[in-house]
């Protein structure tokens, strides 16, 4: 199976960043990032700790808004909408751009209520919820494991199951893009493989951006890779960007080569 065979060149651009700078107070966290995210592909963001990968990911659903003193310059677009424009409703944006976090974080509620949480907040009718929950859990490849215990706590599941529950929860609001912030870093290898298989399945319908520390994971799962690097002033920059097979076999930049071959980072 060649998971990287998706023709990335022909895909339209789903999200893009143009000359993006991010500051935390006076410290610059990201410098001049320009990057396209192709539709229905998996884009992996890789690079050493502290190079601003998570900061970059959280720009796409404006989760950085929660950080006091964070300032964003430049343009980020979802389709043709500039998401940092004053007229944009952040709540609507986050319904279109979902997120899965590093640590599985199901709510301390039943499995059913976890998945139904998003649709409920949008005012979906109660009688529509069971179908939404079932479909979302099926899409997240969790349905068969939990269909008989939907009313048990989401916290009673294993770590891998919890993370798939969080994916189901994100899918339930029917997003277009899913952001994943090191979704497997707290999971064992078998649970990790399950999530990776799931991502390959989901990418048929969704655009996925994943931050990962795991080079093998980026190579296995992504279509496009973006390599970030931290400059001496601690600002993150985009060093290299391209189709994953190309970047992993013939990296253009010495720093990329050094990092992906494990010489440093």
């Amino acid at each position: 199976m060649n998971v990287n065979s998706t023709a990335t060149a022909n895909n339209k651009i789903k999200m893009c960043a143009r000359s993006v700078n991010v500051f935390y107070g006076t410290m610059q966290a990201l410098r001049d990032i320009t990057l396209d995210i192709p539709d229905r592909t998996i884009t992996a963001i890789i690079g050493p700790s502290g190079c601003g990968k998570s900061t970059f990911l959280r720009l796409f659903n404006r989760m950085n808004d929660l950080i006091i003193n964070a300032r964003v310059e430049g343009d980020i677009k979802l389709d043709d909408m500039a998401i940092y424009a004053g007229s944009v409703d952040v709540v609507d944006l986050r319904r279109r751009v979902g997120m899965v976090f590093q640590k599985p974080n199901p709510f301390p509620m039943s499995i059913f209520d976890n998945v139904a949480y998003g649709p409920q907040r949008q005012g979906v009718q109660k009688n529509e919820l069971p179908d939404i929950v079932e479909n979302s859990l099926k899409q997240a490849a969790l349905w068969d494991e939990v269909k008989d215990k939907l009313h048990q706590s989401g916290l009673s599941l294993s770590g891998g199951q919890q993370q798939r529950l969080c994916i189901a929860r994100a899918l339930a609001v029917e997003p277009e893009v899913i952001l994943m912030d090191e979704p497997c870093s707290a999971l064992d290898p078998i649970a990790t493989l399950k999530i990776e298989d799931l991502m390959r399945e989901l990418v048929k319908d969704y655009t996925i951006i994943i931050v990962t520390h795991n080079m093998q994971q980026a190579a296995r799962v992504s279509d496009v890779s973006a390599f970030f690097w931290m400059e001496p002033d601690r600002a993150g920059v985009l060093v290299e960007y391209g189709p994953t097979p190309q970047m992993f076999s013939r990296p253009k930049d010495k720093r990329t080569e050094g990092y992906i071959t494990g010489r440093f980072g």
Partner: protein
Amino acid sequence: MITVMSAQSKRHNRTEPIAFFILGLFTLIIVSPVIFILVYILINGIGAITWDFLTQMPSMAGKAGGIFPAIIGTFYLMLGTLLCALPIGMFAALYLTEYARQNRLVKIINLTIVNLAGVPSIVYGLFGLGFFVLTMNIGMSVLAAILTLSCQALAMMIASSREAIVAVPREYGEASLALGSTKWQTIRHIVLPQSMPGIITGAVLAISRAAGETAPILTVGAAFYLPALPQSPFDQFMALAYHLYTVAANVPGISKTTIWGVALVLIAVVLIFDIGAIIIRMKARQRRHE
């Protein structure tokens, strides 16, 4: 080598029970006054407890009859203070933690709240008399007492609610917002249910304390002797704590058993309230973990 090790393990075997004994002793020292007070009051006061004592109006300045109006008065005070201080305290804490920018003004407000909890209770009494009774012209009444006690309870309520709200894991709030929930939806469906047990605990402590206060209410409407129930929030009232003070200090020739009986009833009222709150809190916890 072997001898060294065994000497060491012998030393462990000796120090371990001593440590446990000392820790246990200190726990006992803390607990024993409470138990002693409770048992002492129970033994001395149980003789006064009869059906008539609990349900009749007092007569002869409290020497005879019952303490029904004082029980009802204390009940009104607790209920009123709860209804007044719990929502205000909870929403103030929510605003301070979730909405307010963490600037110098908020820091000053937080510091003020902490200091408010340390203000002597008689000062609240004087404030209540000056502000609620006279300036707002509410008069010496149940309402004025409730408002005065609420001011005192608020400091505690806000502080404990804030602790409970801050303790809710950030990940839950982030997950909710990332699903496209509004801030208020996140507070309503995640933050509040999660922090409710802690908020209730704070309320219980604050209200229990309000029930036992004498100084803040004696200036704003608690009656020395009033063998009738308040007919409106603007009437004067009796309260157990103040009644206990008057019969103990100001009624010569009253039987000691009656005095202890009043104390026993006061403790029982607070205890029943606490048990009720614990049950509610357990329900809230269960819902949180279901």
